[in-house]
């Protein structure tokens, strides 16, 4: 048996968040996160990456909102492969700008994609091929990046197409609505590139609102978009995507994005924010306790 699969074969993959991050993410890894676009963003896992001081990560995601900005500001990131990096609610990401423009806290290599080319890069990896062809962004400066894009001729029609290079994440971290302890995950709402990333990555870590019995999973197998055979760890992390929304569980906490925008405008303010919300609290339970009850009540949805 292939040793790489050992963790995938475990029958019970439940772990505390700190163990899952410690076991699955190593300095220098390529980590896909925030794949549904603006919802189900695994902020709890991202904050644990910061708390454990991971370094030289490559972040992969189409539009992962302020999660990437926070990891960049915390010095965890040396490279980003994305279509859009910023604050969806407020515009620019200040840490992203500082890193690209001024090398603060460290230089950052950016590989620009469009949303389409990014999901194609993950789909290529998911399918086990080194590239997929597309017509998108012909004549755009995006496809001039030879690391990610090359020209290819269709062997049937001779048309010129852009080949998008496969991106194989070392780890994909996904927040989902529910999973069983083997990692069979039900997710719903907008799916973005989440399923492609789970199939593409060498290792898959799930955080979830609910850990459920197998019987809940098999009651609706068409909702199992990530099969447990691909999963290496399952973390019970309710509210683990806050402040992004989770269909059926949590509305978007828009104010939180706006406050972050203000508190990340200056480097020192960002560091104070990081200390307050990440490094000076031990875990996600403490984060949740820091949020006011009124906020949680306002954000909570009934299962939909």
């Amino acid at each position, binding site marked *: 048996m292939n040793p790489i699969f050992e963790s995938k074969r475990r029958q019970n993959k439940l772990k505390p968040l700190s163990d899952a991050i410690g076991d699955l993410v190593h300095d220098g890894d390529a980590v896909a996160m925030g794949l549904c676009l603006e919802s189900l963003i695994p902020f709890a896992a991202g904050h644990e990456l910061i708390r454990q001081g991971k370094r030289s990560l490559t972040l992969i995601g189409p539009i992962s909102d302020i999660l990437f900005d926070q990891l960049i500001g915390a010095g965890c990131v040396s490279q980003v492969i994305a279509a859009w990096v910023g604050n969806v609610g407020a515009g620019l990401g200040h840490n992203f700008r500082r890193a690209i423009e001024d090398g603060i806290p460290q230089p950052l290599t950016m590989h620009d994609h469009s949303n389409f080319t990014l999901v194609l890069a993950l789909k290529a990896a998911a399918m086990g091929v080194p590239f997929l062809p597309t017509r998108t962004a*012909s004549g*755009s400066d995006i496809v001039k990046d030879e690391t990610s894009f090359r020209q290819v001729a269709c062997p049937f029609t001779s048309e010129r197409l852009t080949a998008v290079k496969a991106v194989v994440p070392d780890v994909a971290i996904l927040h989902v609505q529910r999973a069983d302890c083997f990692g069979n995950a039900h997710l719903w709402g907008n799916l973005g590139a989440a399923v492609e990333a789970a199939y593409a990555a060498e290792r898959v870590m799930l955080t979830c609102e609910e850990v459920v019995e197998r019987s809940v999973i098999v009651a609706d197998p068409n909702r199992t978009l990530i099969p447990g055979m691909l999963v290496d760890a399952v973390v019970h992390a309710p509210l683990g995507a806050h402040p992004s929304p989770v269909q059926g569980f949590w509305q978007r906490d828009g104010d939180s994005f706006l406050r972050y925008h203000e508190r990340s405008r200056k480097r020192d303010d960002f560091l104070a924010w990081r200390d307050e919300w990440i490094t000076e609290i031990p875990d996600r339970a403490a984060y949740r306790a820091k949020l006011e009850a009124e906020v949680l009540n306002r954000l909570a949805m009934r299962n939909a």
Partner: protein
Amino acid sequence: MSESFSTREIMIAAAAREICDGEVVFVGMRLPLVAFAVAKALHAPTAIGVFENGVLRDRSATQPIVTMSDPPNLDGALACTGLLEVMSLLQRGRIDLGFIGGAEIDRFGNLNTTLTQGVRLPGSGGAADIASFACRTVIIMMHEQRRFQEQVSYRTSPGYGNGADWRTRIGLPGGGPSKVVTSLGVFGFTAEGEMQLESLHPGSSLDDVRANTGWPLLISADVGETRAPSIEEIQLIRRFDTLG
């Protein structure tokens, strides 16, 4: 019978009028989202809205939303699927109209949302894809000189490239930009792919437009005034533009 309206409101009204009934529209966020809601309520009741996160809707969200992934945009959706499926619809030629914006635009409708002098912008998102594939695009932008440049510093989303048959030569199947709705007026494109003023918003002048455009702008022979939003349009805009 008239009512005062803001620049934002006439931009939304002008954008809404570009949506035809029955069309499949790649909506995008902010102004186009409101424009889509207004068009559906007025003249395009059967238009379908497509969002790049994977959401397809035939009715506007009933609660205000900041992003396309906010739960009110999922509630009542016809379908929730993924980015690859929606981008496949685009590349397959199934999207009639897409709305996009940018930090910079040039005379051939090419857009930059990536890099300007010294400033790193967030990047393409899906804009380059929409610009490549939608049967036509409508561009919505504030009209400022720093944004209307003879050449963009980085070409994120292709318009008509260097003009003429550039899109065909480069292999872009979508039709390219049909209109630019700005804070000063509405612009079309010539057969050569060059932007051309079609109408001025009430209160803005040709001089305003020229002063804020970084190249010698073409002016349509029959340039007129953008029709002011009707009372009905204004009421709908104010109902839907709760985050304005």
